[in-house]
């Protein structure tokens, strides 16, 4: 992961040698430190919008954080943006003079001039940094708003996953920064000039045909409702309310540890029991756990990996993460043969829920509808993949809701999560899970789960210590050598999270520099606990990663069964239905294929010039 979670920690305060005053208070700044940082260290508040400290983003574009400065030896005051103006010795800073307050307020009013203000219908209603900002600066009028101009801006609904609403964009460029510098997908560009400037997809494409992989990290940093998932709450409710269908709901390993915050519970609370109760309350017929499918994935992927190791095919990449699959297909199609063919846990669960489960329950499989709750935007996209349709018009997964949509759905049903009495899974076929399945939600988890099972398969006995500390760091790329014993012996494994580091690792694999047998990839920094579909945090990027991760490990510790192959429901599934892992039936139902989706990026000078004419003159 490329994001340094706490870039300002541990700075030696004796190096803060620049003496200045802010609002009359003597302050010490580091050389070249922006006024804003210095003010924050001294607990002086300055309103901001585009700036985002966690991703080191100070583009200086919104111009809201203006302050008045008087430099030593000068007579004339200056108005500067505190986010990117450095402190100087003897500088006198005023963050709240009348003039500064007026200018901050006018700036926000100008931002509002072409920002669609139908707040009540916006997904960020009540959770919007721009709304907050308007309050902070005391905005009371809105003289410049031009509705017609605003409505002329693009809303890109081409994708089944991510919606880009330029009518609500404030051009802070956080999305561009996280995509370019952190994920290094670099799918976004700034297009146009002046009033027509907006964030666009590279190559002039729409979302659907772009090089974007739907990791959704841009959504997590967006201050407004400009970026978000396709809202499918209504469709989910249709299924739930339809008495003719049997609705199955599954939720991902990470959801239970990254959901309570929305309802005021402590960050990292495990709300599995609350979610089960909530699902039942809104009328879901069968509540299942994606963790169960994670255990099945381990059986399949582990078997597949052993087979590939025997054939000398290496490395094998994991295939659970749909944004990673998109990334490989669009950016590095030549490595597709290295990807495990095992479907993701979401799809495995859905497929079994539409075959094995109706058989066991004695219902018509065509009545089954699967709704999955995921901390992920790319999962929506995955559900629509042609490879993952049972037949025309019958998808394996019917609706994917992000954690955020699930929260909205509960609010629509009048549910306040903490008020519910937690309950447990009760499905006798597909809800039990091992600790191995639970840790799928965090970086290194799939690898650790796989090693626990593969070790047992190879050696006929369990690992002595199942908590593999050497796999548990938080660095962007981690590697380890694991002795699987028996004929397999030592294998070299690597775990990478965040696409920035993934790119580097993939390139190393392609060039032959990296030497691994098995590589786990999670596209989102931190893994699914901070997925692009998880709850948003205002003015912060991944602030809760470690708390959520810790809770996931605790779920594992508290599990009676800690290896996928020891999950009794999984054993029953193979015994009663699938047969051998990666055998005929299992392979047919639970494995998939990938396609080269490289995008054409060819331009002619003529095209470029036609585009330039709109924004520049030929000198």
């Amino acid at each position, binding site marked *: 992961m490329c994001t340094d979670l706490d870039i300002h920690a541990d700075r030696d305060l004796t190096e803060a040698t620049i003496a200045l005053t802010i609002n009359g208070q003597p302050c010490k700044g580091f050389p070249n430190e922006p006024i804003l940082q210095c003010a924050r260290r001294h607990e002086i508040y300055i309103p901001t919008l585009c700036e985002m400290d966690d991703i080191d983003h100070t583009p200086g574009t919104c111009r809201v954080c203006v302050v008045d400065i008087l430099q030593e030896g000068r007579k004339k005051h*200056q108005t500067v943006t505190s986010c990117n*103006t450095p402190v100087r010795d003897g500088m006198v800073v005023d963050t709240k003079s009348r003039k500064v307050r007026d200018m901050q307020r006018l700036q926000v009013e100008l*931002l509002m001039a072409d920002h669609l203000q139908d707040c009540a219908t916006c997904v960020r209603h009540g959770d919007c940094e721009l709304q907050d900002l308007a309050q902070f600066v005391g905005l009371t009028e809105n003289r410049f708003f031009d509705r017609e101009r605003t409505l002329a801006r693009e809303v890109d609904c081409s994708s089944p996953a991510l919606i880009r609403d330029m009518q609500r964009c404030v051009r802070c460029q956080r999305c561009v920064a996280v995509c370019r*510098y952190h994920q290094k997908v670099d799918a976004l560009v700034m297009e146009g000039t002046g009033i027509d*400037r907006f964030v666009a997809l*590279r190559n002039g494409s729409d979302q659907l045909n772009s090089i974007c992989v739907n990791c959704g990290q841009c959504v997590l940093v967006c201050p407004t409702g400009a970026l978000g998932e396709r809202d499918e709450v209504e469709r989910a409710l249709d299924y739930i309310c339809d008495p003719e269908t049997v609705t199955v709901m599954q939720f991902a390993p990470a959801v239970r540890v990254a959901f309570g915050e929305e309802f005021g519970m402590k960050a990292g609370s495990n709300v599995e029991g609350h979610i089960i109760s909530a699902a039942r309350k809104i009328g879901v017929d069968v509540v299942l756990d994606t963790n169960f499918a994670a255990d099945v994935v381990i059986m399949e992927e582990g078997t597949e990996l052993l087979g590939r190791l025997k054939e000398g095919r290496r490395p094998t990449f994991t295939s659970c993460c749909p944004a990673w699959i998109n990334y490989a297909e669009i950016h590095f199609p030549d490595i597709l043969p290295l990807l495990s063919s095992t479907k993701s846990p979401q799809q495995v669960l859905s497929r079994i829920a539409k075959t094995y489960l109706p058989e066991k329950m004695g219902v018509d499989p065509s009545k089954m509808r699967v709704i999955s709750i995921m901390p992920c935007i790319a999962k929506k996209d995955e559900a629509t993949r042609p490879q993952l349709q049972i037949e025309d018009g019958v998808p394996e997964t019917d609706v994917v809701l992000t954690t955020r949509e699930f929260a909205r759905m509960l609010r629509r049903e009048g549910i306040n999560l903490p008020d519910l009495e937690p309950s447990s899974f009760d499905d006798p076929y597909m809800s039990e899970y091992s600790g191995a399945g639970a840790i799928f939600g965090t970086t290194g988890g799939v690898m650790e789960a796989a090693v626990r099972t593969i070790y047992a398969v190879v050696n006929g006995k369990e690992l002595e210590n199942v908590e593999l500390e050497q796999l548990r760091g938080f660095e962007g790329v981690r590697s380890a050598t694991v002795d699987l014993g028996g004929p397999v012996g030592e294998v070299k494994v690597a775990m990478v999270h965040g696409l920035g580091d993934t790119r580097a690792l993939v390139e190393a694999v392609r060039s032959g520099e990296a030497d691994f047998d098995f590589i786990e990839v999670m596209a989102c920094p931190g893994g699914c606990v901070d997925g692009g579909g998880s709850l948003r945090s205002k003015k912060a990027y991944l602030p809760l990663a470690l708390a959520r991760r810790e809770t996931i490990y605790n779920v594992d510790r508290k599990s009676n069964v800690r290896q996928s192959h020891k999950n009794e429901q999984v054993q029953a599934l193979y015994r009663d239905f699938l047969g051998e892992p990666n055998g005929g039936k299992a392979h047919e139902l639970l494995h998939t294929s990938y396609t080269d989706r490289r995008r054409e990026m060819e331009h002619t000078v003529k095209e470029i010039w036609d585009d*330039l004419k709109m924004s*520049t003159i030929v*000198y």
Partner: protein
Amino acid sequence: MTQVVYGVWDGVVQDGQEGSAPLPELKNFEQFDDGNDIRAFFGDRGFFVFDEKVSLVDALFHYMNKAAEQSCGACTPCRMGTVLVRDALDKMRRGLDADLDFDEIEMLGEQMRETSLCGLGRTCAVSLLDVLHNFREKIEAEVADHRPIRAQHGMAYMTAPCIEACPSKVNVPRYIDYIRDGKPESSLGVLLQKYPMAATCGRVCVRYCEMACQRKFVDEAVGIKTLKRFVADQQKGPNALKFTRDMIQRPLDDSMKVAVIGAGPAGISCAYHLLLHGYKVDVFEKADQAGGMAQIGIPSYRLPKDTLAMETDIIVDLGGRFLFGQTLGQDFSIDDLFRQGYKAVFLGLGCQQGTPLGIEGEEIARDGYHSGIDFLLKVHDHVDEIAPLNLKGEVVVVGGGNVAMDCVRSAIRLGADNVHVIYRRTREDMPADHEEIVAADDEDIFFHTLCNPTRLITENGKVTGVELVRMEQTEPDESGRRNVRAIPGSEFTMPCDHFIAAIGQKVEDGHVMEGDGIALDKWQCVKAGDGLSTSRPGVFAGGDCVTGPSTLIYAMAAGLKAARSIDDWIQLGTPRFFKRSRMRDLINDNKFLGRDVNEPPVRNAYRVHNPELDPDLRKKMFGEVEQTISEAAAYKESQRCMRCYRIYSVVTRQSIPEGAA
């Protein structure tokens, strides 16, 4: 002199009253073009009105319209402010009720000036505010009766110090913006509007733009050349930009053909722009490859041959034709060309003959004596594997320019035991690029400054040594310049196996052209007037053969200028008025494009540098020394540009004639 009726400049108000402070003396302000008076001028530091009847509302509307059109849209105050103010002024000038009153316009103007991100936003409201603060009653009077204001003539022009410094007037901040925006292909598109050789320029340009870059007052100039090379080098492989014939907007019929003589940077640039104007172009070149001095004069460790070839090939992509092995005066004459139906001829012959030192022994030296340019030609043939060249022993190069540096750095690569550079002034006085001097130093070249050759020692025509004399600096003269003089009796000799005189070049066989009716000047360069026309109608010239040895970018700029002149000459028989050039003269003659000394503090961020091969490795080979920067480095460097754009506008009595495209 033009009389200012009222105005404000740098905060100094001139209101025509007795005792009001004097404004700077204005030069070249009488007329914009022939018979067309300048009635008012608006700029980044204020405005001048020369005619009491000028409408401020209309003038400021046009000024703000330019700002809104050119605003990049990154920051809030400029993006919205320019549009809101422009629209209000537009309604006022049309006699309609505006959405904003003057108080609100003033508020937005202050917001733009005080809080905008770049030079454009921070200066585009200055003249507006000067009017509102000092001449409010005048502007209010204009709109008092709500009647439409008669439209005024004039033009607005946006520029920046780097643009003005560039001979080709490349829109530097714009191409850096495009990198920042994530669109390197558009960035290259901006460069290609001026010349086809961006990757070449990104390697060898002497960077007038960087010398003018205002960022140097914060820390260091923006790495403009480094970024240019980055965007040009992105265009390799399957996703390279394609040059297609539809770039030519209006193809002309086959009889409209022009001959370009010399396939160097001036000729290539001229051919490129003529092709884009729709002409058929044949390029006559005496060598068997295109590139001219860029091809033979710049060693491949600075400019790989394939990089250059890729760019000269653009001429062929656009339908141009190279005729190699064609020497003017031997294979054809200018008369021949006109007889063959060429409508015009461009001479881009370069300066390809070395200047001798004029010292004793020079004329009898046969073996081991080279002029700088001859030596580089041999180096080129070596690299191209036409004629291998191995040097042994001591190599002495005389001169302090880039050609001298190219010679010493090539000599060390060819296996010379020791390579010496002899220069009569100090190292600081050397005209070569600083980076070239440093690189030569890193490659263990011996520098002997304040030293001058007096005699070449030969045995049977073979160079064996050189006699040198030490020099000393004289006291500074009136202009502060220190000259040098020889120290009598300080002569010494230095053994020498190869002696290279790299002190200058001149046009080769100039007399041939004189026979064709082309006049030369006293330096034996081609005499060319404004618009680069020569003494013979229909013949134009540019580049080194006009200016004497100069730079790639000057040659390419001359090619563009000549192409415009040729187009004008063929289509109209006379050069068109070029209004942007006129605007530039106005700005430069009056030194308006000054530095704003009251800039707020900027965080230091030092520039990125091209990665370089290790000196010990590179001095043994001709592979390229400098490498392209990474994408991450390019994004970082592009953030350093401060966009010092400024807008200037004039109001004129009559309409300004439209210039060449």
